[in-house]
């Protein structure tokens, strides 16, 4: 496969940045999208040019490190992460535009790499349960209804990649927020801190500069883990019914 890539190049946060065209040759359909970028970088290095900086880690679709806006879609055209996207999803001769996540809460570090520590701070604000360390308690002591356990597990699959905020026309991170709040709120262990959790996490979300949700649904479509839109409704409900002292 031969492709034309239009890639966002930006030296640092202060640089204005621009799209640069790169032709790449010798790509096979079995390569992942990131392997295709590896090929490009090898060619760039051979020519003595600066390689394109992009995030990746596990390349198994479970860590949430890879990102990329590919032809205007977060993680590209398939429902998976960029590392699990394969070149068979593209046509020979295609032009592919690759941009970083764009949100003021995700400042660009270099090229396609953005700083997603805003998500870490949201988790630190309340996305946890407080437990004393020690021997693990007997698992069957606390019963969890099957439906609640399933929903908690489904929402716990969020890997915090940021695709929801990147795809949202308002740059809102409420699918991420909703996934975390639903995950912990469905479980008995999450009840003690339920009220302060939702208020503190939302305050942190707003303070980071994410926008407000207008229930359009781009986030749920972009999510590689298929987190459904109803977690945002759960978030809204939990926030509205949160105890007044919370926060």
């Amino acid at each position, binding site marked *: 496969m031969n492709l034309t890539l*239009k890639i*966002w190049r930006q030296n640092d946060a202060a640089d204005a940045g621009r*799209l640069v065209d790169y032709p790449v040759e010798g790509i096979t359909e079995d390569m992942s999208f990131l392997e295709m970028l590896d090929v490009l970088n090898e060619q760039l290095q051979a020519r003595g040019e600066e390689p394109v900086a992009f995030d990746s880690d596990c390349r198994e679709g479970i860590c949430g490190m890879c990102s990329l*806006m590919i*032809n*205007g*879609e977060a993680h590209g055209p398939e429902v998976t992460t960029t590392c699990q996207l394969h070149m068979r999803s593209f046509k020979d001769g295609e032009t592919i*535009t690759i*941009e970083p996540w*764009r*949100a*003021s*809460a995700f400042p660009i570090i270099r090229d396609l790499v953005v700083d997603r520590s805003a998500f*870490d*701070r949201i988790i*630190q*604000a309340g996305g946890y349960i407080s437990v004393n360390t020690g021997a693990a308690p007997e698992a069957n002591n606390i019963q969890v209804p099957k439906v609640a356990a399933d929903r908690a597990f489904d929402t716990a699959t969020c890997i915090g990649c940021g695709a929801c905020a990147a*795809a949202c*026309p*308002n*740059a*809102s991170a*409420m699918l991420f927020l909703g996934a975390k709040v639903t995950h912990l709120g469905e479980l008995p262990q999450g009840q003690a801190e339920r009220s302060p959790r939702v*208020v*503190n996490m*939302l*305050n*942190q*979300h*707003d*303070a980071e*500069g*994410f*926008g*407000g*949700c*207008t*229930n*359009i*649904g*781009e986030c*749920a*479509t*972009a999510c590689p883990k298929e987190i*459904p*839109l*109803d977690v*945002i*409704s*759960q*978030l*809204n*409900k*939990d*926030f*509205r*019914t*949160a105890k007044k002292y919370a*926060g």
Partner: protein
Amino acid sequence: MATQTLPATRRTGKAGSTIFLKTLMAVTGIIFILFVLAHMYGNLKLFSGERSFNTYAEHLRTIGEPMLPRRGLLTILEVVLGLSLILHVYSAVALWRRANEARPQKYAVKKAVSQSLSSKTMRWGGLFLLLFVIWHLLQFTIVKFNVGSGGGAFQHNPFQLTVHAFQVWWLTLLYILAMIALGFHLHHGVWSAAQTLGWTTTPRARRIAKTAGLVIALVVAIGFILPPLFILFGVIK
């Protein structure tokens, strides 16, 4: 490298948050949904003739008498609707501004994968509806002017005021366009309000809310468009 501990969370409080603004928008929106349904029902009374329509219009002013003064309930409703409008627009502007600040640099290429046309037109369509509401209130409530012949002659005859207004084709067209815009606004608005108020926490509830949005949008838009059309083509006169 150790993760840094977070400094104390900034306390914007519940009232300053995005979800509070969304809730404000949803609650005032529901007040408007109830209002347009009642308004549409009243308009359909145009089909039952001049006397029936004018009696209905007069009755609106005497509801609750003698407990309430004349126009008592109407005045209460006007205050509630006026406040709702201010809060609805305020939260819309605040959220619009936050969205713009949240993404200062736009994407060079951005695909709209799952956006409905109605969700994309909420903001500009809403602005159009705001201008329309101002025009509509000036025309039929505050000034009661007539764009056609015989302006001002029907101050105390709502039926004649309405029938004469829609003899003008471009006015009828303006109202039809506004009602299509209202239909779009309701299509996304009903579902969005349900989602914001936390009523759609299951896939089934989500489908119901979306269907309700479509049904209410169609009923309201068609219900409002019928009387002006029938007046323009001389069926109601």
